């Protein structure tokens, strides 16, 4: 094993030799190596988180036709560090009557539920935490812990607006978990496995985004709702309930909530890359040609993965800064009356076609899947248009005066 080809195993093997040479037992050696590896991975994730604060502020500035932080350091790169220092030295005001233990537990649980997702994120074929065979459901489980952290934070603040915000946020998050879990079944069916490594390797011929674009769109929408970002950010609706469930949090605790949200968004971008864009691979068979064999290098794969994850994060930011906020009853109606049935239809379609088209050559399979998605999308849009037309007719029938006004306005 050379370092360049297999870095993690190389270092682990070297450390294992060192530690067993010192006389430690095998199990203890494993635990120590895990400790060191996990600490390195988590520190990497947190440093990435700090960088994401800078990315977020620069990108939102560009979307809003301004420059963003550019005073501190070149291109404002030191800005997030200044932010962290500011947050740490701010006074930590605990509201009267707050439940001390739960109040402190909220932000810790919020970030912990995002960090544990990095255990299964495959940075490359050889650089990853652990290859769980239930990784896809693990993503949903981490989301469940995040939901719990919001309730804990909202309730422990002893503030009815915080509690109200927490309730709305949780109702939002659990509703959008259903289409997300249903859509997560689609890469499982296409790759015949729940492990992220196998899903990535199954996409070496063709991305799942092309096999099932509707699944990608539904996953994107549900992910944005899970994150609680705009246009689904009822939680942080400044004009409605101030800052939602984290009104009463100051200083570093608020910093942890905020940084946790950004890291969560990036992690979801990473999962989108893994599940739909081929993760660290997905070069359409290019890496098998001798000239491009450097594409198999773990470091190159890690860079490719991070680039795709950043692209996913950028799409999430793009949607955040381009669309207005959606009202909560519209949000829930959208989920239960549109997204869930659509997700179930796409799932049934994928399952049926994966058996029916199994015998065809590769291009037949790809085209069949892709066109079935286009057909479903087309039918959905037609149904929506017919429904909209019917609603408009009902409105004009009720009040012909307003219809006349509308026509004159147009």
């Amino acid at each position, binding site marked *: 094993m050379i370092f360049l080809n297999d870095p993690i195993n190389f270092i682990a093997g070297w450390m294992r030799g060192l530690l067993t040479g010192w006389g430690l037992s095998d199990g203890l050696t*494993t*635990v120590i190596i*895990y*400790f060191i590896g*996990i*600490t390195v991975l*988590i520190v990497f994730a947190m440093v990435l988180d700090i960088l994401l604060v800078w990315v977020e502020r620069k990108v939102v500035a560009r979307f809003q036709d301004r420059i963003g932080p550019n005073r501190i350091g070149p291109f404002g790169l030191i800005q997030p560090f200044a932010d962290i220092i500011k947050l*740490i030295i*701010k*006074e*930590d*005001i*605990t*509201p*009267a*009557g707050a439940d001390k233990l739960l109040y402190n537990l909220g*932000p*810790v649980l919020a*970030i*912990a539920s995002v*960090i*544990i997702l990095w255990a299964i994120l495959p940075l490359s074929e050889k650089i990853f*935490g*652990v290859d*769980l065979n239930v990784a896809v*459901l693990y993503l949903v489980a981490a989301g469940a812990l995040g939901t719990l952290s919001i309730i804990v934070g909202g309730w422990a*603040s*002893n*503030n*009815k*607006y915080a*509690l*109200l915000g927490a*309730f709305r946020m*949780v109702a939002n998050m*659990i*509703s959008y978990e*259903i289409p997300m*879990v*249903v859509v997560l*079944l689609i890469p*499982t069916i296409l790759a015949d*496995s*729940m492990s992220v490594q196998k899903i990535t390797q199954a996409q070496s011929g063709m991305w799942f985004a092309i096999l099932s674009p509707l699944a990608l769109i539904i996953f994107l929408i549900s992910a944005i709702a899970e994150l609680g970002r705009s246009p689904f950010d009822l939680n942080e609706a400044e004009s409605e309930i*101030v800052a939602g469930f984290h009104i009463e949090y100051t200083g*570093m605790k608020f910093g*942890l909530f905020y940084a946790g949200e950004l890291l969560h968004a990036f992690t979801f971008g990473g999962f989108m890359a893994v599940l739909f864009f081929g993760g660290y691979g997905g070069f359409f068979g290019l890496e098998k040609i001798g000239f491009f064999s450097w594409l198999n290098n773990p470091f190159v794969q890690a860079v490719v993965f991070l680039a795709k994850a950043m692209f996913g994060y950028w799409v999430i930011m793009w949607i955040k800064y381009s669309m207005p906020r959606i009202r*909560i*009853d519209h949000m*829930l109606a959208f989920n*239960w*009356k549109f997204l869930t*049935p659509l997700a*179930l239809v796409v*799932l*049934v379609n994928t*399952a*049926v076609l994966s*058996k*029916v088209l199994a015998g065809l050559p590769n291009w037949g399979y790809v085209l069949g899947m892709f066109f079935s998605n286009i057909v479903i999308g087309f039918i959905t849009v037609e149904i929506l248009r017919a429904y909209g037309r019917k609603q408009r007719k009902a409105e004009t029938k009720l009040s012909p005066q307003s219809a006349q006004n509308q026509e004159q306005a147009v």
Partner: protein
Amino acid sequence: MQNEWLYVGIFLVIGIIVPIVPLVFSRLVAPRKPNPIKQSTYECGIETVGDSWVQFKAQYYIFALVFLIFDVETVFLFPWALSLKQMPLFVVLEGVLFIAILVVGLLYAWRKGMLEWA
């Protein structure tokens, strides 16, 4: 015996310790001057009216119930999805039947107006 979940367990432990570090650091460094006005809960800048309990809508509970049913359903669908490659075509139809029965439930809840936020 190598259990891959050991890694996840250690990850969870360190994942809880790592955010505590800046919190502890902040407690060491930040000033602490509590006074009753600073510690009063926030209500749009005015004094709080009433205690911290309001009548919450029952609608939250109904959405959580419907979510629970569909969550259990999707959890059942995961083993089904993994068996598709090995088994013949009728297995897909079994899954479709499963989903269809629950879609009937969703339609019932829809028609009864349980999915409104009224």
